[in-house]
């Protein structure tokens, strides 16, 4: 057995049938390169941004006690507001990514997928029902 995950017994899905596909050729196709570019150009900067923002917050909470203890409204201080803002940014990035993926990633991925699954084995298209 090679390093490819084998399909389950009695379940000849497209995984088995894709053996004929030249993945190195697919990797070079402009459509695929576009998909990879779109994916990475979103997730890498976003991951870097939220990690920086999180660690900025951690460092402030850890070393800038006076600043974080500044009262803003009633008993609510800057530390609490910045902490709650971490929640807000997490929710916002989540929604942003979902909408980006739905618009920019899923259509190309689906297009490539159906191309490959149809091209690989014309007799057995979409082997997994």
């Amino acid at each position, binding site marked *: 057995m090679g*390093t490819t995950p084998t399909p389950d017994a009695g379940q000849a*899905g497209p995984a088995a049938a894709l053996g004929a596909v030249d993945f190195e050729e697919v990797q070079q196709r402009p459509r695929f390169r576009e998909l990879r570019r779109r994916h990475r150009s979103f997730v890498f900067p*976003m991951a870097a941004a939220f990690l920086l923002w999180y660690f900025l*917050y951690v460092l402030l909470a850890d070393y800038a*006690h006076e600043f974080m203890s500044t009262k803003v409204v009633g008993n609510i201080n800057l530390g609490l507001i910045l902490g709650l803002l971490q929640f807000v940014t997490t929710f916002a990035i989540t929604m942003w990514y979902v909408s980006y993926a739905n618009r920019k990633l899923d259509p190309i991925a689906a297009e490539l997928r159906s191309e*490959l699954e149809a091209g690989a084995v014309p007799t057995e298209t979409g082997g997994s*029902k």
Partner: protein
Amino acid sequence: MNVLTVLPATATAAPTQAGEPWINMTIFGLFVAITLVIVLRASRNNKTAADYYAAGRSFTGSQNGTAIAGDYLSAASFLGIVGAIAINGYDGFLYSIGFLVAWLVALLLVAELLRNTGKFTMADVLSFRLKQRPVRIAAATTTLAVCFFYLLAQMAGAGGLVSLLLGINDKLGQSLVITVVGGLMILYVLVGGMKGTTWVQIIKACLLIAGAFVMTVWVLAMYGFNFSALLGDAAATAGTTDVLNPGLQYGASGTSKFDFISLALALVLGTAALPHVLMRFYTVPTAKEARKSVVWAIWLIGAFYLFTLVLGYGAGALIGADAIQAAPGGVNSAAPLLAFHLGGPLLLGLISAVAFATILAVVAGLTITAAASFAHDIYANVVRRGKVDPDGEVKVARRTVVVIGVLSILGGIGAQGQNVAFLVALAFAVAASANLPTIIYSLFWKRFSTRGAVWSMYGGLAAAIVLIVFSPVVSGSETSMIPGADFAFFPLKNPGIVSIPLAFFLGWLGTVLDKAGEDPAKQAEMEVRSLTGVGAEKAVDH
């Protein structure tokens, strides 16, 4: 008359129990009965390995997301964070932020690509284009190590909880309860497989989040929905406004501040590398559903941590740090005590049952992950070199469940009294060091090689564990596991800040020094599959 004896302000005589044990036991018994019926019904279709490990890939994104929340919001999150906020104020809140933000790593970098390239375990993804045997052995080793730390934490938590909720204070009685919890967990996993485990987690997540929501609204209503007033009362009860500001727990010294950075790093990078979380992504049919799972999980987990903020300060205001620490179960008793204060024995019983269910569900999820890793990676692919039918593999997985269950019962009895939140933080540190670098590299770095993977996994695992052994957690202070000895030369309690960068570095170094390189065709196949989802195993129809 054994209704709560905690509330008297003269908390000198340590109260022995809270509420009516029989109510707690009845509600917990009901939960067990209902979930067992569901598990039995769900297990009728467990035939293949995909059924047993991945629930036939038949869950929807929202179901799986709820189950992820159920898996993730362990007793340490619920009891631990509420207690930490009640006693240490703002610093307890810091924990929950790390636990939530970490999900973005899973959402952006891991979940979908992993779903598209693997089958059951983390090792499936790594061995896609790297050399099967060394990588599988390494990945199974790290998976088992992380599961072990996490299991110990949960089982140790069970013991402490029992003393508070059932009024069982002697060691023998607590051990007996740990054995019962462990036995139930074995039964769930053995019979129900991933499908049964997932349903237990879904039910538990709904109960936990609903319970926390009701208590949150209740507490806020007592202060006219004025959060500032609640904070003011918490500061008044504590006698200092320090509970509203950072620094009470981690601000003590330069070392403790540095320790907090180390903890933050481990929390944010550990979540997306926890094996039992990774395995959950295989229970859905497509990458899109995997994405949806994480989105659901983020909303549920985020909402829950917002509730714990209110509950923690509520417990601090209404019960007070001294009374909480004097109660059996110490810090962990804040949430149950608050429930009793609000709703009497009935609400306490409900919340206690939920806490028990939490431990049960999390332990079940960990056990099935460890068993899958052993049976699928070590037995089927390394020992038998893939020449095994799925039935045989599932048989081995079931036997492994029993072995791990027995080990975790013994470990739980041995680990009684250890700090639960700590053990969990250590599990995160081990996961972030041993697993995350390799996962990220193999998904995104074309050149990444087998040697890099093996060095990173073993190096990260060894560094994390060695630093823990020589840290103040194990020796050198009165709260250590071995209070008498002192061989703690590493000053930090959490090893993440050293072991995580080291594991990233080793992965890079091993790859650069590996002249052989890997098959570019395999890399191409993995990249195309991971992004397009072509050939990914779909749901099994029943």
